[in-house]
């Protein structure tokens, strides 16, 4: 019994390690190629570098950060600190429901609202607003847990000392600082790795220049991996390998930081 379970678990574990290893090590040696991080891709993505995809992904993350973190944080504060119990439970389960909606549905929503109705077109801003629609409930679900974990005595103690509600809230935020940072990183990580929504709302496979306005389309890392695999031949595959490797390394650093923060909190 124990041994059957152990063998199955070890097999899963070895398979997972192999997958991560193959993805990282089959791409990481291209990082040292001259101009890999600073050049545009050339000759149907078989030469050059990943500069515009890198900047595109970064720009997306910046806009998602600016839109979704403040909104998400304020929403979380309302849910855990101000809302009456029933409303708070209702809103939290709404956020959980939104987390389970498939990401491609968000893509359709973004296409119909941001690209068509608000006529923003296929653009950086449509893509990042679509991603933000996904990111806000994700952040709320995660952050609400951390804010709820702050002991009630702390809140009551601060108010008993004569603080008003705003000061008490700031106190709670300070107490759950690491938790909020965790939620922030997980949210951005998720937005970074999501492909389907930006595929339909904001990404193009090739652009000769960086987006100048927020209504210009962008190239991003995940959509370029998809484009290379589906449309281009063997010669361009190294670039997809390198980008996959880069994305996995970024995600692993995010999760390592999260694990570090978690250990730090427990001490």
């Amino acid at each position, binding site marked *: 019994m124990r041994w059957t379970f152990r063998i199955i678990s070890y097999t899963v574990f070895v398979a997972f390690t192999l997958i991560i290893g193959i993805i990282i090590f089959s791409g990481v040696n291209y990082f040292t190629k001259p101009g890999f991080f600073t050049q545009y891709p050339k000759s149907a993505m078989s030469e050059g570098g990943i500069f515009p995809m890198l900047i595109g992904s970064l720009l997306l993350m910046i806009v998602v950060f600016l839109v979704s973190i403040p909104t998400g944080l304020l929403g979380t504060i309302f849910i855990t600190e101000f809302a009456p119990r029933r409303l708070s439970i209702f809103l939290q389960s709404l956020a959980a429901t939104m987390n389970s909606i498939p990401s491609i549905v968000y893509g359709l929503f973004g296409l119909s609202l941001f690209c068509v109705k608000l006529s923003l077109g296929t653009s950086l801003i449509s893509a990042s607003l679509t991603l933000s629609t996904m990111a806000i409930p994700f952040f709320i679900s995660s952050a609400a847990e951390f804010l709820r974990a702050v002991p009630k005595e702390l809140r009551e103690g601060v108010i008993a000392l004569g603080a008003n509600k705003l000061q008490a809230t700031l106190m709670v935020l300070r107490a759950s600082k690491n938790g909020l940072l965790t939620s922030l990183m997980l949210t951005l*990580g998720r937005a970074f790795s999501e492909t389907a929504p930006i595929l339909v709302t904001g990404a193009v496979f090739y652009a000769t220049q960086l987006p100048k306005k927020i209504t210009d389309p962008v190239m991003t890392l995940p959509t370029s991996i998809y484009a290379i695999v589906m449309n281009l031949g063997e010669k361009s595959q190294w670039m997809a390998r390198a980008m996959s490797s880069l994305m996995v390394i970024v995600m692993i650093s995010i*999760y390592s930081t999260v694990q570090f923060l978690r250990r730090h909190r427990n001490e």
Partner: protein
Amino acid sequence: MGKLGSAFFISIVSIAAMVVAAALFSIVFFISSESIRAIKEVGFGLFSPNWYPVWVDAEFGIRTMLFNSIILALWTSIWVWSIGLIVALYLHRFATKKEKEIMLRTLEYVSGIPSVVLGFFGVVVLGDLFLKFGAWTAQNFLNASIMLSVLTLPFMISLSYQSLEKVPREVVEAAVALGAKDLSVMVVEVKYASSGLINAMLSVFNRIFGETMIVLMVAGGANVLVRSLLDPIRPLTAALGSEMGEVEIGSLHYSSLFFIGFLLLVGSLLLNLLTNYLTRQRDKWVKG
């Protein structure tokens, strides 16, 4: 900071929370309103088997894709559920502290791999293996199913592990005191943790059903009903992912694609309700 400031602060945070509620309703509104045209003009034709959206006599039948999606999701879920539960039980009951730490950490890393990267892995690495072992196509049902398992297993394992860890010691000790051996103790624990496990299982199914990038890249893209594990197939989400970028906005094709999105949305909302209902039932049963 006076009363006015307080009121201002409260109104800002409540508006932020309302934005979330409004977002869900507007998602439902936009997806359904865009699909009305297809429902009106194609009607029951939407459930016919053939999907030829750009032919002169265009057909917008999603039945084959729908069945393929369901079969793929069910088949994959069954594997993920059973393997996930076994690994979670191992971690919970037998693993040493060191093993637990390393495995849980690796699981977190794997759960962070973007789905497009897994799709790429499926095409390049697993696809080659399939060809080497004599499959007639590199992108097929089994390949997609394996990559979807890699995507959802970490999720299944960590959720089930967490709910198993919540089983109180007394329950286990009482079972042992009554003479239960390894297997029976596990049955007791699984029963006790069942609400969390059901939640994990249904979430896994939901994620597989709605996953787009992997099936788009790895499943093969042939719109025929699956007959063997090595058949290439085309689930619903793959049609959305590949055609949504090229479709003429406002056309009947566009509207039918939104109808697919509408089905996915309704499916995931219903699954959510079912999860809530079942977990509440199990909770009641556990508490007596």
